[in-house]
C-alpha cells in the first residue's frame, strides 16, 4: 500500500524515550502478531541455506556441506523442470483467457433493476468462493466421474457411451479452468461492481438524452470508466503467472493426467515432504527459484501499476 507522506507536523515530536514509554502497551498489543510472523514467516527463511547445501538432517543446517549452486544447476538441466514450468504457464495462460468473466458478470448484474433479484443472484454467485477445493473437486467428481457422475448418467440414459472425463489428458485443463471460473467469478466481480458504482450517473443521463442505447452506454461509458480497475487487476494477475492453485491441482491429479498437472508445488510436496529428507535440498532450491521469480514479478507489475498513477498493493 502506498502511504501518502504526511506533512511535517507543526508541533515538534516528543523524544523517542517519551514516545516509547507512551506506547509501551501498544507494543504489547502488536506482540502476538509480530511473534507469529517472526516464527512462521521469518524463521523458515533461515532454512533456505539448504538450497546451497547437501542437507543432511543428522548433521543439521550448520554442519551440512556447502555445495554452491549445484542444485540450481541440476534444476536448469532437469527436463522435468521445463515440463513443470511449461505446465504452470499453460494453466496460467488459460486462466488468463477467462479474465473477462467477472467483468461480464458485473456488467450483467449492474443492468438488473430489481434490487431483490440482484441480491439473490449475488448470494448464489459469491458462495463458491467460500468453499474449499476439497468440496469443489468432490462436486466435480459427482458430476464427471465415469460410473457415478451425473453427466455420464445422462449420456448413458440417452443412449450414449460413458466417458472417463477425469482421466482424459485432452480436457483436464478445461476442467481445471472451469472449476476456477466457477469458484472465483462471483467474488472477482465485486471489485468491478464497486468501480461501476463509482461512475457518475449524470454521464448515463446525458447519453440517454442523446438517444444512446443500452449497449452504447455500456461500451462508451461503463467500460471506459472501469478501465483503470481492469488494468490494475490484469497487471496484478500477471504477477501471479508462475503460481497455480496448488490444492486444486493436487486434488485433481491422478495417474493418467499426471504429466499434464506436474507443477512445482506438487513436485515439491511429493518429492520433498512425502519421500523424506533425501530431496530436501533440491526441492528447497526449486521452491526458492519459484519464490524469487514470483517476488520479482510482483514487484515489477506493481511498479507498472503505481507508475501509471494507480494504487498498487505494496
Amino acid at each position, binding site marked *: *500500500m502506498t502511504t501518502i507522506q504526511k506533512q511535517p507536523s507543526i508541533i515538534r515530536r516528543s523524544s523517542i524515550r517519551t514516545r516509547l514509554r507512551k506506547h509501551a502497551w*501498544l507494543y504489547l*498489543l*502488536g506482540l502476538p*502478531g509480530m511473534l507469529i510472523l517472526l516464527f512462521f514467516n521469518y524463521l523458515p527463511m533461515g*532454512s533456505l541455506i539448504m538450497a546451497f547445501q547437501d542437507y543432511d538432517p543428522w548433521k543439521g543446517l550448520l554442519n551440512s556441506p556447502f555445495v554452491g549452486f549445484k542444485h540450481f544447476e541440476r534444476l536448469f538441466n532437469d527436463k522435468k523442470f521445463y515440463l513443470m514450468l511449461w505446465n504452470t504457464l499453460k494453466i496460467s495462460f488459460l486462466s488468463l483467457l477467462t479474465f473477462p468473466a467477472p467483468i461480464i458478470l458485473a456488467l450483467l448484474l449492474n443492468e438488473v433493476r430489481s434490487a431483490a433479484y440482484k441480491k439473490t443472484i449475488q448470494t448464489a454467485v459469491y458462495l463458491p468462493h467460500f*468453499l474449499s477445493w476439497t468440496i469443489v473437486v468432490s462436486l466435480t467428481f459427482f458430476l464427471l466421474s465415469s460410473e457415478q457422475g451425473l453427466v455420464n448418467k445422462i449420456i448413458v440414459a440417452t443412449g450414449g457411451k460413458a466417458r472417463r472425463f477425469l482421466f482424459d489428458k485432452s480436457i483436464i485443463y478445461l476442467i481445471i479452468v472451469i472449476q476456477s471460473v466457477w469458484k472465483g467469478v462471483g467474488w472477482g466481480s465485486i471489485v468491478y461492481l464497486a468501480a461501476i458504482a463509482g461512475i457518475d450517473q449524470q454521464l448515463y443521463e446525458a447519453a*440517454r438524452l442523446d438517444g444512446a442505447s443500452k449497449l452504447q452506454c455500456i461500451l462508451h461509458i461503463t467500460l471506459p470508466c472501469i478501465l483503470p480497475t481492469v488494468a490494475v487487476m490484469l497487471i496484478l494477475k500477471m504477477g501471479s503467472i508462475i503460481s497455480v492453485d496448488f490444492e486444486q491441482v493436487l486434488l485433481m491429479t491422478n495417474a493418467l493426467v499426471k504429466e499434464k498437472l506436474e507443477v512445482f508445488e506438487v513436485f515439491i510436496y511429493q518429492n520433498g515432504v512425502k519421500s523424506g529428507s533425501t530431496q530436501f535440498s533440491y526441492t*528447497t532450491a526449486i521452491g526458492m527459484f519459484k519464490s524469487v521469480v514470483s517476488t520479482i514479478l510482483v514487484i515489477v507489475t506493481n511498479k507498472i501499476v503505481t507508475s501509471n498513477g494507480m494504487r498498487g498493493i505494496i
Partner: protein
Amino acid sequence: MTQKTIVKHRSSHLGMHASERIYQVIIGLLLALIASTMILPFLYVIIISFTDATAYVSGVFYLWPKKWSTEAYTLILRGQGFLNALKASCFITFVGTPINVCANAGLAYMLSKDDLVGGKLINRLVMFTMLFGAGMIPNFINIRNLGLINNWFANILPGACGAWTVMVMKSFFSELPKDLEEAAEVDGCGTLRMFFQIVLPLSLAMLATFTLFALVSYWNCYFSAIMYLTDTTKMPLQVYLQKIVLTTDISEVVDIQDDLRNKVPQEVMRMASLVVVVFPILCIYPFMQKYFAKGVMVGAVKG
C-alpha cells in the same frame, strides 16, 4: 435512487417500456442461468444423499428418489471417523479464529499509530512477508523443529497473522475519527482500555468480517493438515471428505461397526458426507452476506 426513477419515467414517456421489460427479462434469465450452475450441483447432491438404499440404482440417472431416507447421515454421524475429524476441525476453527483475529487486530492497531518508534520498519517487515515466502520445505522443517508435527497449532499459527489482513485493518483503524481517542486520552484512558473499550466497539462490522473469513479458512484447512499431521485420527473434515470421495472402499474412513456395504450405497454416503462438511459454511454464509452489504468487503477487496 431518484435518478433511477427519473430515467424510468422518461423511458416510459418515450414508449420504451416494453423493450426495457424484454431487456430486463433477458438479463435476468442469463444471470439465473449463471447462478443456477452454482446452486444446482448442491441440490443434486443433497437430493441423492437422502435417497433410500432400496430406491437407489447405481449408474442410473434420476433427479427425484422414489423413497427418502436419512440412513446415510445416521451412519456417517455415528462413525468414529467423522467424530475424530469433527473434533479436529472444531479445534482448529474455534481455537484458531480468536487467535487469528486478536493477532491481526493488535498488530494493525499498533501500526496505525504514526508516531510509533520503529513503526515504519515493522510495517516494512510485515509487507515483506506478502512479497516473499520461504517455501514449502523450509516451512515444513520449521514446523518440525518447533515440535508442532501432529499438533493442531501447526494448522492454526502459520496463517494466524497475514500481511494483507493487517494492512486492511490498519487502514480501517487510521480512518476512525480521532476526536474520541483524543478525548479519552485527555481523560487519562490507557492504551489497552482505549483499544478494547473505544476502538474495537467502533470496528465491530470490520471485525465480524475478518472473523468470518478466519472461520471459513480454518474450516477449509486441507493442505496444512496433510502436510503437518501424520496421525490419521487427527485429520480434519476436509481430509475426511477427500478420503471418502476418492477411496474405493469407504467403510474404513467412516469407521463404524455395522457393515456398510449392504446398507447404503457408497455414492449416497459420499454425497451425504459432502453435505455434512459444507453445512456449517452454508449456515454462516447468510451472515457474511450482511457484511458485504455494509461495504466493508468492497474496501477490503480494493485493498
